[in-house]
């Protein structure tokens, strides 16, 4: 929080540098998983996320954790890029999932994650990733995705069932 204050009050670039260093790994990991391993796209989105954070840091009210706020920007940035790709009006999530699942560049051993995530809807993917990969609470996920707590729980429940079934078929958990 001290680093955030330094950026807000003194526009301290060194403090912001340290903030980027601290949070780049979880934010980039989250975006890599959302883009199904497209590292180029996810790095562009991550850069955009941090630039937006820098420009809007005064609107961070400190009600939630700084990381929660960053994840929210990252999620919005990802969703904005999806909307730009497909147009705002005819956003068909099922079609989008197929089209937006770009080729995997990240690493071969991540194939099972991406194969499992592809079974889920976009909002289920984000909720599952935030819950199990990024260890966020349901309440934090609700803030990040800007959806009601009940919807988060439903997304996680549905996503969990689909992924659990797939992973057992692939021999995990035996």
């Amino acid at each position, binding site marked *: 929080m001290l680093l955030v204050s330094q950026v807000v009050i003194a526009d301290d670039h060194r403090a912001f540098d340290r903030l*980027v260093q601290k949070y780049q*790994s979880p934010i980039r990991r989250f975006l890599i998983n959302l883009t199904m391993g497209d590292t180029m796209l996810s790095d562009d989105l991550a850069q955009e996320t*941090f630039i937006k954070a820098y420009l809007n840091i005064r609107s961070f009210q400190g009600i939630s954790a700084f990381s929660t706020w960053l994840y929210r920007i990252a999620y919005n940035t990802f969703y904005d890029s999806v909307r730009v790709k497909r147009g705002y009006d005819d956003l068909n999530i099922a079609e989008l999932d197929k089209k937006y699942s770009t080729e995997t560049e990240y690493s071969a051993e991540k194939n099972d994650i991406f194969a499992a995530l592809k079974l889920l809807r976009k909002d289920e993917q984000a909720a599952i990733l935030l819950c199990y990969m990024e260890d966020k609470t349901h309440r934090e996920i609700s803030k990040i995705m800007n959806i009601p707590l009940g919807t988060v729980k439903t997304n996680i429940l549905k996503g969990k069932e689909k992924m659990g079934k797939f992973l057992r078929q692939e021999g995990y958990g035996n």
Partner: protein
Amino acid sequence: METNDDKLLKSFFSQNKPEIADNGFTQKVMLRLPEKEPKTGWIILMFTALGCLVTFALVDVREVISEIFTFLLGIPIYYLLGGFMLIPIVTMLVMLAYKREYNLA
């Protein structure tokens, strides 16, 4: 209550949770940071304060205030009420314009 799916997913994701090496990412972000607009609010504030001081020094403040009151008392009451009713409307419009900024918090 933790279900089997919970345990399975926790174990699966914990095994596939890489730390991403920076590899110059932070540097790229720092190089792309746009310049923020310089803070000019203090200049406006300083000139306003200076203007007020000069006004107080040059003008008979008591006379000005009494003339303002005389003027206000001369205005029909419904004009004044109309003027006051504009305040919440203008405030609301200003707030709406402010809210249109990208609210991330």
